[in-house]
């Protein structure tokens, strides 16, 4: 069966510091991968999606970037965090025209 791992679960980082959140999927090949952010009162917002290694599409302009160095690995990064980057970050996978399955999320607090 398929599983998705996301870490760390919580993170407190100072403004201006770098960020790296990692997500890996097991039990499936060539998944579509997604990064979402959930801010209070705003619902889940799609940040990036990827249909294959090295293929990244961004949905909103922001201070973040994503990379997919391997088929089942998706990384969310920032060179310098802003206060507004605080939120709950969720990684998800799907096979395209089906439901998406989510990781446990990372609660990021920028101080």
């Amino acid at each position: 069966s398929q599983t998705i791992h996301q870490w760390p679960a919580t993170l407190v980082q100072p403004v201006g510091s770098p960020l790296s959140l990692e997500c890996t999927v097991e039990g499936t090949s060539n998944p579509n991968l997604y990064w979402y952010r959930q801010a209070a009162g705003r619902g889940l917002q799609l940040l990036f999606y990827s249909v294959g290694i090295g293929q990244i599409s961004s949905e909103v302009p922001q201070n973040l970037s994503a990379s997919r160095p391997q088929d089942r690995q998706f990384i969310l990064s920032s060179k310098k965090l802003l206060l507004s980057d605080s939120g709950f970050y969720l990684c998800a996978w799907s096979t395209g025209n089906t439901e998406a399955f989510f990781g446990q999320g990372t609660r990021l607090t920028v101080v």
Partner: protein
Amino acid sequence: EDKVVQSPLSLVVHEGDTVTLNCSYEVTNFRSLLWYKQEKKAPTFLFMLTSSGIEKKSGRLSSILDKKELFSILNITATQTGDSAIYLCAVPYSGGGADGLTFGKGTHLIIQP
């Protein structure tokens, strides 16, 4: 731009009550509508609806889609405290393929004992 609106945004009921959560949508090319339950962390999948008028059911939860009026409802009967969660409604991006989901803001449901 795709749009999903959920109502109410929050709801407090007593155990045993029946609740109805609403989701309306505007998309260029409709493919499906999905419901998720989010308790603490990861949203978990409940239903995917593609056809009007066909009820999907799982235990005490059921959902139906009206493609003419562009909305869906999620019903929970005989609610229990374990049903307390945020219920999310989403539609796939109209671009098709692996573009991701547009979510509503969710309904925060609290079941009081």
